[in-house]
Every structure is written in structure tokens, then in C-alpha cells.
């Protein structure tokens, strides 16, 4: 029974960890491309989930199309946020930019509450069965889907940054905006696109989590949870974000196990990622996979 519970928690940890990883990648994408620490990342999940929920419940659109429209909308939304709010801030001190993203976070959260109310709203049932049995373990169908989608997104990111022209352009921009411009890359386009992709992919994660827990402002806590994940992995490493996400997801669930079985403190689940974050930063200040520049003259 005990080991059964442990196994279940580990599976949960990996599933939620891949989601953290995906949102972490989105966070790192924005940071790498445009050097903005986006504290409104969680709100991208929230808005995406609400838009999808609204399309499904108010317009009775089939899930697939509602999902697709929400993602496309969030792509445009992310680009608009960059172009309207953040573009004028290019060159301003980093603290101003951070304050603006924190402001955006508060604003969007309030806006969502105003538009859709403060109560959690369940998604209409999408899968015929709620949970499926995988090797004797109960797994939410939505989570199963989420893992599939997350892995697909990760593979997509890997391909995008390795082989696509725009992905290379984003890496070049992350390396040096001046060099990117000297190669004919429009840095403005890269910034807008990175925000667009980040918001769209975050919306996917938002919908998936919303399907399991219902849509409510709690979704935006993902943005905070993702913070230890990306710092753990190294703020500028997309791969690190995935690993960091998995570690945080696992830690949360193992923390819960230790807590419920032995310690009985009651809140280790929430806290443990941050403890580990502090310890890792003391040992490796750049995070696990964060890079220092290659120097060779």
C-alpha cells in the first residue's frame, strides 16, 4: 500500500513535472530572446484556459476547435502584449521591465476575475472516461493527454531551435542582438514571435491543468511554481527548464509523501521546491544547466 502510494505520487510528479517543464520552457524562451523576466507567465495559462472554457461552454464549440482557437488567440495575444506594452520599454532598466510584468500579472488576473467570476469553473467533460488504469495506477485521462502533448511540445521546441530558420534567429538574438541584426534578423520580429509562442504554449498547459482542476485564478500559481524550476535548471537553458520542471514536480510529490507518512507538518508540498532551490543555488549559482559564456580569443 505504501509503495503503491509512493509510485502513484512519483507518476503524478512526473506528469505535473512535464507541465512545469513546458511552462518553464516558455518562461526561458521569453527570457532568452528578449531578456525579460516575465512574472505574468502564469496569467498566460489562466487567460488561455478561460478563453478555451468560454468557447466550449458559451459557444458549444467542439473541444478540438475551441482548443485550437484559444491557442491561436493566445499567440496573437502574446505578440500584442510584447508589441504594445514591452516594445516601448526596450532599453529601460531591468527593474522597470520587471515591475511592468508584475503589473501585467495583477491586471490580467483581476481582468479574468471580472470577466469570468471568482469561482472555479469545471471544463465540460472531454474524454469518455475520467481516469484510466495504467499498470494498476489510476491516471487522469487529461494528464495522460497532457504528458503526450508536453512531450510533443518539447520535441517541437528541440526541432524548432535546431533546424528552423526562425529558431536559429532566436538563438542568435539571445546571443547578441547586435550580431543578430548584422545578419539581417529583425530583432523586433524575434521578440514578438517569442512572446507569441510562449503565450500559445502556456495556454496549452493552462487548458490541460484546467481540465483536471477546473479553471480558476489558482492556475496562475503555475507561474510562480515554474520560477524555482527554471532557476534550478538555469535561467537561460531550455533543456534545464525541462529538467528543473521534472525535479520540482517530483519533489513536490515526494515532499507530500514524506510529510504525510512521517513528518505531519502539513505543507511541505508547497515549500520543498524552494528549499531545494536555495540549496542548489548555493552549490551551482548558474543553475544546473545555465551557461557561462564560452570564452576563446
Amino acid at each position: 500500500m505504501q509503495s503503491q502510494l509512493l509510485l502513484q505520487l512519483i507518476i503524478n510528479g512526473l506528469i505535473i513535472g512535464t507541465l512545469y517543464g513546458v511552462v518553464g520552457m516558455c518562461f526561458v524562451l521569453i527570457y532568452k530572446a528578449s531578456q525579460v523576466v516575465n512574472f505574468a507567465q502564469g496569467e498566460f495559462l489562466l487567460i488561455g484556459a478561460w478563453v478555451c472554457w468560454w468557447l466550449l461552454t458559451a459557444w458549444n464549440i467542439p473541444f478540438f476547435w475551441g482548443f485550437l482557437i484559444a491557442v491561436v488567440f493566445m499567440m496573437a495575444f502574446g505578440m500584442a502584449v510584447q508589441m504594445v506594452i514591452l516594445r516601448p520599454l526596450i532599453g529601460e532598466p531591468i527593474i522597470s521591465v520587471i515591475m511592468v510584468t508584475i503589473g501585467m500579472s495583477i491586471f490580467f488576473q483581476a481582468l479574468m476575475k471580472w470577466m469570468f467570476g471568482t469561482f472555479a469553473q469545471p471544463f465540460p467533460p472531454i474524454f469518455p472516461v475520467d481516469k484510466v488504469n495504467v499498470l494498476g495506477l489510476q491516471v487522469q485521462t487529461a494528464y495522460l493527454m497532457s504528458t503526450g502533448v508536453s512531450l510533443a511540445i518539447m520535441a517541437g521546441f528541440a526541432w524548432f531551435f535546431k533546424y528552423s530558420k526562425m529558431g536559429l534567429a532566436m538563438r542568435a538574438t539571445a546571443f547578441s542582438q547586435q550580431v543578430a541584426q548584422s545578419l539581417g534578423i529583425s530583432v523586433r520580429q524575434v521578440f514578438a514571435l517569442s512572446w507569441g509562442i510562449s503565450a500559445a504554449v502556456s495556454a496549452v498547459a493552462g487548458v490541460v491543468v484546467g481540465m483536471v482542476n477546473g479553471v480558476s485564478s489558482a492556475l496562475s500559481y503555475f507561474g510562480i511554481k515554474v520560477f524555482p524550476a527554471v532557476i534550478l535548471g538555469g535561467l537561460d537553458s531550455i533543456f534545464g527548464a525541462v529538467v528543473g520542471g521534472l525535479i520540482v514536480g517530483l519533489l513536490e510529490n515526494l515532499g507530500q509523501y514524506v510529510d504525510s507518512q512521517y513528518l505531519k507538518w502539513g505543507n511541505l508540498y508547497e515549500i520543498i521546491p524552494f528549499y531545494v532551490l536555495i540549496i542548489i543555488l548555493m552549490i551551482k549559482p548558474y543553475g544546473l544547466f545555465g551557461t557561462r559564456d564560452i570564452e576563446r580569443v
Partner: protein
Amino acid sequence: MADAALKLEPVAETGAAPLLAVDNIEVVYNDVILVLRGLSLKVPKGQIVALLGSNGAGKSTTLKAISGLLKTEDGEITRGAVTFLGEKINGIEPDKIVRRGIFQVMEGRRIIADMTVLENLRLGAFTRHDNEVKSDIERVYEFFPRLRERTGLAGYLSGGEQQMLAIGRAMMARPKLILMDEPSMGLSPLMVKEVFAIIKKLNVELGVTILLVEQNARLALSVADYGYIMEQGKIVLDGTAQMLQTNEDVKEFYLGQGGGAERKSFKNLKSFKRRKRWL
């Protein structure tokens, strides 16, 4: 001879309009620092033009003013015009200038260290939408056979190899004009020779026009068709490469060949207003 060369109109000027014309530009950094004060030069199609001068003369600034990268450093052309193929290009975003056919190989090579050689080359072709990118990569490898063997990150290449990659990356854009900033910087003498041979080859075999900024005046003039010498943000002397190589002042200050006894003091020179060293 020096006086004759001081005329504003370049001697080698032919009737045809030059590929690039910089006309009396003034460049200001951060709204206050005046770096170029009325600089003019012309780059005829198919030639290598060398732009020489001491540190801080404004050579790199001139190149950045042409490529538009000045904007990324808070600089601005406040007066004058840069004309490329008959169209005024100052004030245009740098990425659009690349699309028009001007590609700058920046000082210090600036290859993307955390990418592979191949990825760097593919990025060079960012502005292109044809399907000859693959064959162009092959051509770069033919120019620089040693790049083919380097499969790791570009940051681990030697300085010379990085310079080759930077030039190869420029070739990938198929530019009409390459602005080359200090290609010899930090390279061994042998490697410098190799790089300059390649610059000449680029010009002769591919017909690329090159505006070359260099500290190493001797080498630059050995490959160039025409040369400009600048001091304190202005052109002070220009002429064909041969003419400059034999000019007494150039010999003394840039080629390190001493002049006669009467040339011991800078203040005797009218054509060179050198900055006083203690200032």
C-alpha cells in the same frame, strides 16, 4: 604629391556612379559625442577599398553608419547621406540594409559561439529565400576546407578559423558589398596573410565589392584598389593603393618606414593633423 591627393574628389573616380557613396556624414553618439565630422567616401563596384587610420579615428563608426548598426549603439547620422545603388539608406533598420545587399563582418568576428559552424553558416543566409543555400555552404567549405572538419561549437574554433567562419557567414548572405572591420585583429601573422588572400579571392572570384577597415595598412593596401586615410572623423588623404603606398606621410605613419631628417616633428606636417599624445 600629398597635396595633390588631398582633393576631395577621388583620383580614380570613373564616370559611373559608385556602388556606395558616403556623402559628408556627421555621426553623433548618445546625442553629444561627435565622432564623424563630415566624412565622404566612395566605393566603386567590384573594387576593394581600404579605410585606414589610427585608433579612435572613427573607422568602425563609419562602417556601422553604413550598415545601420550604429542604431544598436545609440549612435545617429545627424547630417549627410549614405547612398547605396542610388538610394539613400541612412535611417533604415540594419536588417533591411542587409536585405539590400550590405553585410558587415564586425570587429572581433562575432560568430555565435554556442552554435555549430553549420548553424552559423545557415544563419548567414537568413535573409535569403532561394534553395541554393546548400550549394553555397559547399562553396564556403571549398573556400575554407578546414571549416568542414570542425563539427563542434564555433566558440571553440581558433581565432583564424573564427575569422574564416565570419567571412564564410558573410558569403552566405550573397551580399553586393561586404564591410570588413579589422579582419586581422588578434591573428598570427601567417593567419593574417591567409585571411587577406581570401579577401582578395572573394573580390576576384565572386566579384564582391569590399570596404575594408584595417590597422595593418601595409597588408590592406597590398590587396586594395583604392584607399582612404582618416583622422579624427574625417578623410585626410585618399588615392589609389599604389599612390598611398608610395606617399611619404603614409609610409612614415602607417607603414613604419622612416622619413628623412626633416620629418622628425609632427608639427611640420600640414596634411596630417595628429592628435597631440598628451591630450
